[in-house]
């Protein structure tokens, strides 16, 4: 079911200026654009890792940031599941401890059934005792997604989750993302360069360039940049 998502804010960092004015209802919002266009900054703004100048960020009925009302929920209370492009799996913990890290810190969010569902969905049971350094690219990706999901997030923020994978692995990981969208009904903001991914997953596309939105609309709207 589509969720109202408000991304209406201004971020200034040195010479870089990122402006968003999106108020959409979607299950998966895809962010497009060249390197340096501000895609990752959007995700990190939602996650509370960037200091904004002004604006609003809302996911569903929850306000994460509202400069007018003086609301700026700290990162650790935002309940967003952020999967950065570099994954950032904790190297001193095995797969199980990585996945449970968010679950343990969120006493009211997770449950044993929820955790079991996530592990089954991403087929992670065989890897739980492995060291994260011993995992393949696709396995690492699934662990990072599972770790984010165990916090029972309001929204899943995925930064080019399939870019580092080869074609075969992409084809294997993509169905997991579809299942998260359909079975867990967790809304996503998804950074990608791949048209096939967007068509398979997103129902809304925001195209950025130089920190500004140059196109925003349903995923199937033809765009010369996407095709």
């Amino acid at each position: 079911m589509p969720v109202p998502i408000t991304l209406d804010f201004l971020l200034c960092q040195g010479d870089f200026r990122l402006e968003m004015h999106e108020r959409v209802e979607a299950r998966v919002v895809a962010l497009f654009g060249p390197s340096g266009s501000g895609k990752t900054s959007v995700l990190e703004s939602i996650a509370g890792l960037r200091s904004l100048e002004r604006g609003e960020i809302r996911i569903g009925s929850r306000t994460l940031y509202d400069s007018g009302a003086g609301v700026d929920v700290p990162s650790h209370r935002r309940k967003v599941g952020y999967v950065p492009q570099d994954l950032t799996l904790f190297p001193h913990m095995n797969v199980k401890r990585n996945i449970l890290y968010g679950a343990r810190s969120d006493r009211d969010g997770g449950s044993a059934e929820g955790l079991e569902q996530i592990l089954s969905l991403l087929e992670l049971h065989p890897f739980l005792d492995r060291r994260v350094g011993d995992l393949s690219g696709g396995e690492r990706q699934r662990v990072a997604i599972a770790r984010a999901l165990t916090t029972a997030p309001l929204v899943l923020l995925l930064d080019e989750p399939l870019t580092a994978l080869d074609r075969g692995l992409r084809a294997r990981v993509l169905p997991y993302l579809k299942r998260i969208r359909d079975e867990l009904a967790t809304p996503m903001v998804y950074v990608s360069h791949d048209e096939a991914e967007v068509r398979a997953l997103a129902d809304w596309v925001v195209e950025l360039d130089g920190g500004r939105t140059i196109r925003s609309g349903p995923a199937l709207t033809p765009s010369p940049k996407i095709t």
Partner: protein
Amino acid sequence: MTGDVLAIAWRTVSLASLATLVMLPPGIALAWILARRQFPGRAMLETLVSLPLVMPPVATGLMLIWMFGRRGPLGGPLSQLGIDVMFTWRAVVLAGAVMGLPLLVRAARAGFEQVDRRYEEIAGTLGASPRRVFLTISLPLAKRGVLAGALLGFSRALGEFGATIMVAGALPSTRTIAVAIYSYTETGQEAAATTMLAVSASIAFGALLLSNRFASSA
């Protein structure tokens, strides 16, 4: 003499260990603050922490006497509670901790600086409070630097002389290896001094070897 040597060696090692335990909490906190926080007075704090490294140890000892003597701002209240510091084993621990602290802070700070901030940020997005991020991410990932620093601090406390002799004297109950070497040499007991030297060198060598091993793999 063997009994004396063993007793002094045991006292020195146990008081240096205690000094290390005493310096660890403030040392880790200072190392993390200097590695991760920007604030006014940061350079001042950094200089203050390093001061015992460059000041004559006897000067540091004199400052400790001012602070922890019976009329001192800290020693006075402690004395009223029945806790005397000067010329007791507590003074040996105090001198060792103060003199070892800068070395611990330097190595632990380097350890924290090597921890990629992304791990801390991502742990935060997973719902971990800043305290939990510190305990479960920053500290474990910086542990080799902290351990190297603790061993350096221990080694420094082990060989402490100048500040120790100021605050604890050379009493039989507070005499450490360094103080004993000085006393034995002063009184012409060269064999005893040489034995203490060998014991001191062996313990310090082992501690430094371990410290370097931790530091090189940090």
